[in-house]
């Protein structure tokens, strides 16, 4: 490590240092407000460092981490999601029993793990990031001390996620056995002298992708998703649905891009099957849900399925960066709309001892009781549906355009069929919200100012990037190094 390495790692060091400071703060002075403020400041400083690093040439740190614009892009997404989660959690945790201070520290640690995964250029870095992220998430999911669902969800996630991590680890070991390297750039150039090595390599990739599919909750590895989404506190669910998925996808995309693993027909066929099954399965199962958190869980399965079109385009298009562009824009849109949807649920469940406002009946007549929340929820749901003038449409349009460029018609048809099914269940929630004279039994407590402020900002950006997507597109393109039209 030299001086240059430290400079490049500044955001990571700042966040890690911030976590230490937070730990000290919490040991000497237990104060939630101070803790939230501290968390937001640390995250903002990290964000500032990430943004100031934009434009620097790509930098490889001992073959372990590769820091470039691509990483900066994901880091910005993760940090913004973390800030949103912290602010929403403040209102949400109020009135719930237990000590909420450590929650924010764990949130910062989880974000550090996600950022590490995005930058990984070596299997060890992947595993390091993944474990930092997952272990923090186990605690975050089960955070509310009381109550049966969070504990059940946390335990379920702990066991299954542990198995998935092990599967990935074993896959990495087999790949290492076959190739003798764990660095992505060297993996892409392997020539096999023995057929046995090639077999190990393929089996290793299979195990690796199975583990990844679990973390991304792709059908048929999706079983845990609805239970965990439902059981976790609403702000954590939002974080889980965005950052933890985003981090794994960031790794998967870069891994596919550098090693060209999708050129292996078996692997790309498997990913293709994941995509089709997730798009159809997620949307079909969401039809049956009356719990909005579960509904969003299944919808997130479908959305990650759509996202795989962008991943598969890496192998199809001559210029893989176009596929990266589409994937990143889709993911950015997905982040915004998912955070908005879970944000509304968080705000509606604020300061309450009871279960989250997650049943569809809790949304009945929301338009007339809490117009602002209802408008933001409607915007988020319309965005998830993919209605124009929202960022969700821009994102979906990007996938359609990329798929059309690559001639991936079967996937696009599946996307269209999936979106068509999705219209029904998203509209069901919207329809519940406009029904008048109902839901009076749900006394939603007044929300904290910062929670509402965050929601409004996300709501405005959902529309803003939908009306004027060029700003988002240009930003993404400049960061991943695509120039010109």
């Amino acid at each position, binding site marked *: 490590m030299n001086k240059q390495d430290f400079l490049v790692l500044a955001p990571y060091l700042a966040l890690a240092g911030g976590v230490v400071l937070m730990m000290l703060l919490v040991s000497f002075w237990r104060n939630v407000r101070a803790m939230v403020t501290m968390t937001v400041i640390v995250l903002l400083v990290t964000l500032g460092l990430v943004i100031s690093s934009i434009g620097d040439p790509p930098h490889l740190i001992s073959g372990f981490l590769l820091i470039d614009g691509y990483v900066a892009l994901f880091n910005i997404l993760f940090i913004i999601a973390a800030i949103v989660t912290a602010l929403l959690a403040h209102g949400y945790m109020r009135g719930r029993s237990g000590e909420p201070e450590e929650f924010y520290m764990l949130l910062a640690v989880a974000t550090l793990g996600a950022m590490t995964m995005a930058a990984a250029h070596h299997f060890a870095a992947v595993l390091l990031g993944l474990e930092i992220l997952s272990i923090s998430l186990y605690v975050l999911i089960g955070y509310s001390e009381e109550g049966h669902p969070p504990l059940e969800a946390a335990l379920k996630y702990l066991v299954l996620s542990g198995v998935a991590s092990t599967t990935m680890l074993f896959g990495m070991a087999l790949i290492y056995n076959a190739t003798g390297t764990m660095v992505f750039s060297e993996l892409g150039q392997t020539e096999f002298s023995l057929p046995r090595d090639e077999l190990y390599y393929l089996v290793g990739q299979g195990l690796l992708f199975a583990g990844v599919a679990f973390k991304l909750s792709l059908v048929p590895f999706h079983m845990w998703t609805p239970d965990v989404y439902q059981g976790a506190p609403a702000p954590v669910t939002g974080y889980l649905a965005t950052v933890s998925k985003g981090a794994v996808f960031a790794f998967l995309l870069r891994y596919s891009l550098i090693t060209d693993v999708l050129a292996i027909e078996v692997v790309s066929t498997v990913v293709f099957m994941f995509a089709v099954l997730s798009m159809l399965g997620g949307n079909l199962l969401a039809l049956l849900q009356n719990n909005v958190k579960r509904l969003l869980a299944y919808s997130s399965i479908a959305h990650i399925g759509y996202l795989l079109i962008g991943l598969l385009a890496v192998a199809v298009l001559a210029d893989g960066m176009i596929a990266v562009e589409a994937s990143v824009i889709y993911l950015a849109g997905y982040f915004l709309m998912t955070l908005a949807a879970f944000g509304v649920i968080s705000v509606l469940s604020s300061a309450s001892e009871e279960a989250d406002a997650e049943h569809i009946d809790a949304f009945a007549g929301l338009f*007339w009781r809490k117009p602002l929340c209802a408008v933001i929820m409607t915007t988020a749901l*319309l965005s998830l*549906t993919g*209605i*124009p*003038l929202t960022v969700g*449409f821009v994102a979906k*349009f990007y996938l*359609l*355009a990329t798929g*059309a*460029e690559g001639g991936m018609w079967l996937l*696009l*048809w599946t996307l*269209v069929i999936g*979106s*068509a099914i999705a*219209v*029904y269940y998203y*509209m*069901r929630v919207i*329809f519940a919200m*406009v*029904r*008048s004279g109902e839901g009076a039994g749900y006394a939603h407590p007044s929300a904290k100012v910062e929670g509402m402020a965050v929601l409004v900002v996300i709501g405005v950006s959902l529309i803003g990037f939908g009306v004027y*997507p*060029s700003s988002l*597109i*240009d930003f993404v*393109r400049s960061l991943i190094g695509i120039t010109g*039209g």
Partner: protein
Amino acid sequence: MNLLALIVLMLAGGGIAWISERFNPKAPRWIALFVLLAAGLWVMGLWVSGDGPIYAEMKFPWIARFGISVYLSLDGLSLMLVALTLFLGVVAIASSWTEIHERTGFFQFNLIWTLAGVVGVFTALDLFLFFLFWEVMLIPMYFLIAIWGHENRGYAAMKFFLFTQVSGLLMLLAIVALVYQNYATSGVLTFDYQALLGAEIDPDIAFWIMLGFFIAFVVKLPGVPFHTWLPDAHTQAPTAGSVILAGIMLKTGAYGLIRFVVPLFPEAALDFRMPAMTLGAISVVYGGYMAFSQSDFKRLVAYSSVSHMGFVLLGVFAWNQLALQGSVVQMLAHGFSSAALFMLAGALQERLHTREMSDMGGLWVRAPRMGVIALFFVVASLGMPGLGTFVGEFLVLLGAFQVNVTVTVAAAIGIVIAAVYSLSLMQRSFQGPPNANVAVMADFGVREMTMMLLMAIALVWLGIFPQGVLDMAAPTLAGFGVGGP
């Protein structure tokens, strides 16, 4: 002032109307009326002072990445349809002047936003922008039905949204496919309508892309077998919603067929001519047959729309000057006559709280002014010479006769059926022995009579002096390469 400003004016006016409800529940309708009158005056000014073939045009880049621009253009065809939109918008506000008591601000907001979307559809010449407006007009319409509709509104609103949204997705896929086919052959990525007119597409693919557009538009038109959403949506919608749905929204489907399907895919459309014309004829006959079987006043009028719009489908795919001119006249005439009949149905429901014709009968005695108006529009609907519908249907049949005699003869039977169901409507509701349950019924007031008379004048004008409309439409149609008869 340019076209974008017109649309923005309407969108902003809708927002102001919504907010104004806080100060006075009666303010929104005045603001809505004012906005529509202002927009209408501007369009009338263009009509009188402007010179064709293009009355107003604007174009600037929007999303450069995909070659998408904000390209709005107003030629003769668009101008007439925009004028119809704004006029019927005023009618819709007037017809719901006393009907809506709850959430008046949000009602007028949705009303104006729907109209703004429709104006956008009629003026957009960039396919992306067109699709955007196409979707944008649906959401407020969904709310209009879902919130202020009648007893079965939830089902009707969902059905309406699903049909149009799913067909919209098909169109989106078709648009993207068309653009990338053009990109593959010409190397230019653009959504510009004019540029795509000359696209060279593989005939096999062109057929499928054309079919995507065709289904989207025929669902909206609506043509058999995609019409099943219409009777529910029209019947359940509030009066203003029905007026806009029947008077304007159905015309967007017809407009799409004329503007996009045939010009973009001339060969494919020619191959598809017989199936499309047959569907048109089936719609005419089947819609009429179903209309006759209804006992619900609004449902009868709704099915009559299927029948009347079938002529438009027939005329468009006959694709000669006579038939196309007939289709345009038919669109305008049906706009007036169906809007008037739905307004009448709404007035009856407001007074009698029923739409069942078995609960009516002999109403002429109670409300002679309503009776006269009803008779006039019923006669207009059955195609009385001297009124607009006759000109439209006659021209369509004349043009279609040159293409295929059998189909034309079948469609002509529809005119006979129209006479049967129209007169039966009159007979069952206004004639016959007075219904004892209806002792008193308020007649039309000044507001309603003014609107009805304006629409009656428009129909007479279309009937005895259609040349004005034909001349307006001629340059547009000539631009499509449709020569003399």
